């Protein structure tokens, strides 16, 4: 599939990869559930509510295309700005998230063009293939996220704390190793082991297999 960059100056509807167009399992509960008339323009408050409600699915989608978190958040910010600009065009009878994902996809492509020489970013046709795969797996991914919450609850507090330091505070392994008096290598091993157990737990739960009440790495 050929992907053309979004040209908002021309007011064009972007060409979208097939996968991204499928509204199937996306969480679109907050949309147009009020099924307002399409010619009514949402107020700033209503549109802000839509963005707030959907920013996390948007970030998950973007991170599949551009895995580095900092880059993904930058793309999310750009996407939100575009969505705000294009809000009068949003058809309230349709789901919000698939509409928003189109813009996220093209912002990822634009970002890729900007950074292709500085960083490692996938080719456009690979991004298209990922989008299609993601769309096909959406139901399973929902189950896995639910499973993740349960698995995290079952994890020992000190392992959860370690994960939280890594993911919440963006602490480097070296900083964390300094704090707990271990070598960075030991902490890498520990973190890898925790994530391995977590992935295994998610896989088992999502597949409907039994998982013991608590997890002891």
């Amino acid at each position, binding site marked *: 599939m050929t992907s053309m960059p979004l040209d908002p*100056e021309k007011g064009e509807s972007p060409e979208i990869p097939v996968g991204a167009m499928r509204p199937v399992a996306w969480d679109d509960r907050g949309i147009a559930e009020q099924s307002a008339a399409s010619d009514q323009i949402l107020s700033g408050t209503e549109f*802000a509510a839509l963005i707030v409600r959907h920013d996390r699915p948007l970030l998950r989608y973007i*991170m599949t295309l551009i895995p580095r978190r900092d880059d993904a958040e930058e793309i999310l910010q750009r996407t939100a700005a575009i969505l705000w600009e294009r809000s009068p065009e949003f058809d309230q009878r349709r789901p919000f998230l698939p509409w928003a994902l189109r813009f996220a996809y093209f912002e990822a492509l634009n970002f890729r063009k900007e950074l292709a020489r500085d*960083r490692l970013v996938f080719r456009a046709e690979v991004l298209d293939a990922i989008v299609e*795969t993601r769309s096909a797996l959406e139901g399973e991914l929902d189950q896995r996220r639910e499973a*993740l919450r349960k698995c995290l609850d079952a994890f020992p507090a000190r392992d959860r704390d370690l*994960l939280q330091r890594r993911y919440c505070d963006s602490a480097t392994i070296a900083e964390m190793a300094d704090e707990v008096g271990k070598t960075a290598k030991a902490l890498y091993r520990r973190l890898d082991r925790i994530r391995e157990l977590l992935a295994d737990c998610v896989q088992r739960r999502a597949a409907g297999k039994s998982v013991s009440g608590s997890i002891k790495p």
Partner: protein
Amino acid sequence: MSKDNPVADPLPPADQFRRLADGQTTPDEFQAIESRLATDAGYRADYVRFMDLEASLYEELSLAQPRASAATTVTPQTTTWGWRRVVRRLSIAAVSLTVLLAGSWVWVRMLETSANTQFVEAQLKGLEDAAVVTHSSGIQQNPNDRPLMVGTRLKPGVLLLRQGELQIDFLSGARLLLRAPAELHVLSSISATLVSGSVAARVTEGAGKFMLRAPDAAIGESGTEFAINVNVRGDSDVHVYAGDVEVSLLGDDGNTLFSKRLSKAETVHIDRALRNVRTIKMDLDSFAVIRELERSRLVVTHAYYEAVQRSKPMLYWRFDSQNNGQIRNEFDTKYAGQIITEPDDASSISVSGGVAHFTRSNAPRYIKSAEPLAAINRKSFSMEVWINPETFHWGTVMNLIVPGTESRKEVLHMGILELAMQTQMVHKPSVVRYLHRHPPGAHTWGSNLFSPEVCTPGQWTHVVTVKEPNELRLFVNGVLVRRIQGADTAGSDENPYLFSVGQFGTAKRMRQFQGMLDELAVYSRALSEVEVSEHYWTMVSASRPIDPAPGGARPRPTAQRALFAPGNTLAQK
């Protein structure tokens, strides 16, 4: 299995994805992953599952997870390292990083086929942002390179400036202006090496330690401004614009051989071959000079004003004007602002053009509410402000203080919103910090929320704090970035609190904020996520540069990156 030889012995898919997510893949590894993603559907499905789990982990752990106990603050202490010890320590770090950067450097040389300006990031795991571009002019880049525009963040790497000039602010607070042709190696937020060319440097008082190295010399000290020219032989000329600067002539091991203290207006030549430093006279036009940031203002529409009014603030300072040192509260006759400055330094706080502008002063200077805020902490409250800092620095924006303690040696704070640096807690430099301390006290405890990203000099950043009885929230640019939950997190009481703006407390000259503030509001309730988002986007959607971007391209509507950049002149509200 060796992780160093992935082509000969490929890692399992999960390990490949892990390295990709952590930014550790080599170009060869990346190419292998990309090829397989394009052709292997099962591998692609595993990749999607992995990345979705990774993103979900961020989501679950960064915002939703309550913390069992509040963070503990440590009393800030002045760093007592001697200058030579700092030189030695920074030299070791700089030498190590220079070695690590060598790989990137070779790559630059191999890629360098055009005469365009280039910045190549070091390909190392775990590197943090070191600096941000704050001024750029006359630069030509290759079409696919990341634009070196105002707001672009730089990690350690090699900068080859072929045309024009570029100013970068290091997260430690130092500001460098490079004039082409120049080559600068960005080593970290506290050090850089000028390989050749002209650089001006300003390390303001209140900035962190910073060292600028020339091939055989090292310079850096807070409260100084100076310039260095390095010629092709590696000899350096140094001129001091302000403060006293210590120049260290370095030996082969990177340690100081000889040092000389230079005063304002002094110029020296450092001869690499002879290893000496001698005073000279030369034309000052050959030295670069720091650019002052343009002071762009917010475009504040009536829609923004209405959005804030709908949220019913108890205090709303718009800084449209001042009357005998009084700032009007738009929502009430109470809680007007009072500008407090020393008579001989009244310009350290000025209200004009619709903003409040703060500069460094040798005396305490601040704006305080005419009356303490009554029962502000009864249950929930929120504080909202637009911040445009002059530099990266440690500057307190807002305080909530127990009345009567503001003049004591130890001020009793209930809340502080500030740009944090060198606090001796774990966080990036120059991020937004909200501290809630209850019962109010001095420096020994408190719940802290640090933003993940910095507040960039010359750009407007929207900051909102929300306190609820068992939860604290910090929003930056309309997005919830930190939350702390738990019964012990945020105590409540019925007492009034003194509200002041612009420095830490009111009694001493301490942590003075430098830059501009606008549209400051305090609410006696919790703003919702939707209200915060609406306020932010209402402001952003109204902001448009008057001049189109070069080439007629539509300017990016990203608040952090372009809309409020100094190069964009914005209409007055």
